[in-house]
């Protein structure tokens, strides 16, 4: 088994060699440009871009709590994830059935579309102030995330239902399926890849929203709160720790969902 592995590694290297080299060059030059720029700015007495090593040191300190918030980085991350997951779960739980309903019934669509067409283009952050005032500082950020995730999921599910190939419905009917069975065995499975796409988009929006929402208030801490607090105190090294934490979380969740999206589409033979 080991033999095969090392062989396949060599094989990958041979095939993907150029890609790997260029990726490495891209990453290394990014780091070097960052480093060089921070040294240059430092020499100009501008301190807002700390060098990578300084940020790394700040990261190590942050693990047990930065000097400003005293809250370990992991706690900030958990607090943000907590809000994120709640807002996200709420959006899925409401958007999926509504999307199925609005996709399946034109009356539901006539009823639901005008309102959602008005609400959908409003950026969640434009409403953040209202959500904080109406739901308080505890639930405000959650509702803001909910709003950001809700519409991509709703519209994708609705689009999925409306995209169902009519032949599949005909086939199901001639095979004796009832209306309920057609919904459960044709429309629902057909919609799942669309739902996954909606979730993917929603995840991206969600991370953007949660960081900014936490700038207004974040009881329990949060990465966004960490970024704002360190910013207003000019502790840019710790601010970059927060920024990088958000970047990594965003990359992880979106690539995970994209992977899942592809796997589902593949498993369902729809790709």
């Amino acid at each position, binding site marked *: 088994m080991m033999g095969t592995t090392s062989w396949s590694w060599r094989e990958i290297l041979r095939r993907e060699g150029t890609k790997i080299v260029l990726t490495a060059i891209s990453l290394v030059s990014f780091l070097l440009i960052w480093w060089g720029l921070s040294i240059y700015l430092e020499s100009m007495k501008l301190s807002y871009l700390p060098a990578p090593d300084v940020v790394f040191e700040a990261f190590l300190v942050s693990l047990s709590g930065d000097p400003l918030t005293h809250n370990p980085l992991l706690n900030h991350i958990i607090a943000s994830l*907590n809000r994120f997951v709640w807002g996200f779960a709420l959006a899925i739980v409401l958007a999926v059935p509504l999307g199925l309903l609005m996709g399946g019934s034109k009356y539901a669509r006539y009823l639901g579309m005008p309102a959602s067409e008005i609400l959908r283009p409003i950026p969640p952050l434009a409403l953040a102030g209202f959500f904080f005032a109406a739901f308080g500082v505890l639930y405000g950020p959650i509702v803001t995330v909910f709003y950001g995730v809700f519409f991509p999921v709703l519209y994708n599910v609705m689009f999925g239902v409306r995209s169902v190939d009519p032949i599949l419905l005909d086939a199901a009917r001639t095979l004796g399926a009832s209306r309920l069975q057609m919904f459960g065995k044709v429309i629902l499975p057909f919609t799942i890849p669309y739902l996954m796409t909606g979730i993917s988009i929603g995840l991206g929006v969600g991370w953007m929203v949660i960081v900014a929402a936490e700038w207004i*208030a974040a009881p*329990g*801490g949060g990465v966004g709160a*960490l970024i704002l607090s360190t910013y207003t*105190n000019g502790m840019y090294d710790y601010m970059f720790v927060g920024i990088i934490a958000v970047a990594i979380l965003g990359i992880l969740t979106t690539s995970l969902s994209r992977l899942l999206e592809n796997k589902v589409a593949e498993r369902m033979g729809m790709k």
Partner: protein
Amino acid sequence: MERKYLIAIVAVVAVVVVAAGVLASGILNPANDPTVIKYTNIAPKDQSAAIRQGTVDGGVSWEPYVSDSVLDGTGHVLLESGDYWPNHPCCVVAFDKEWAAANSETAQRFVKAHIVATEWIQQTLKEPNSENYTKLMEIGAAFSNRNVSVVAEATKHMQMEYNISDESRQYFQNYTQEYMNLGLLKESNLNDNGYSNVSEFVQQYVNTGYMEAAAGIEPVAANAQLTTVRVGFLAGDLHQFARVVAESTEIPGFDGKSIFATYGIQTTSPQPGGYAAGGNVMDAFNLDQIDVGYLGSPPAIMRHLQNGIPTEIVALANTEGSAIVVRAGIDNIADLGGKFIASPGESSIQYLLLRSVAEQNGLTVRMG
């Protein structure tokens, strides 16, 4: 139903809900530690609502929001900053150092207007039955968007003061030392900015030269050209009452002109609604958006040393006037352990007060 997909959907929803529940229930968070005060940043104007909703157990803020929470019955004052730090300087007037040096006469005029406005407030507060008093309360209420009784209460908990006494200088040293003790500033921050120790720093950072020169400043001629000065200040902060009064054209005795205009000054602000915290005012200095700032002395010190922002303190705006307000059931500092307190932001004197009080009582402060 296609069983497999139904099961998958139910499973996903269940996992999400359970995960959310676990996160929300605080299982992953350590239990409330009685030696830790947890804090969160909430704008002072929202603190009263947050205490009422039970999101936090109390808040540390500035006037008039302290009086606001007390008068509407949300909470009671646990500690006034004046009891903990008697006569402590709070908000100050800071100048962009280069701007002031290049426009020293304008700078002197600005300080003069600030002094005149402060003295007018001091005098007016001694005559609570006068028309001027009513006028002052109305100006304060309009600025802070609170009613006059809140403003009246607020003025009892702070002193309007421009003079930088030796005691004030000592406090500035204490604040700086406090920041260093808390690890927010390091020895190197002093050295990087050319100071060998804390007392030398305060010596240089406080510049009373403009105030001394202001004694000789007279009102400008009625038709004189006004000089524009860009000013940054905090949103709704009555500590900076002098600025609000100096802007007003309704103060009797100045021929319908504002006090600033009387001394040849016309102000503008890049953020007319005011900044959320002193740190933001310092950022405005850093970006060369303002020439003069009204802000808490701690952020003026902290950000100057932290980021080398070229500013100087030229006058006080007020002393005292901050407080920790808590809900019923919290009766002493020791009770704050394990509680959740709202703060305006870490670049504020209120945050410094909270941390200083906590350390004095063997408690630590942590965002939570």
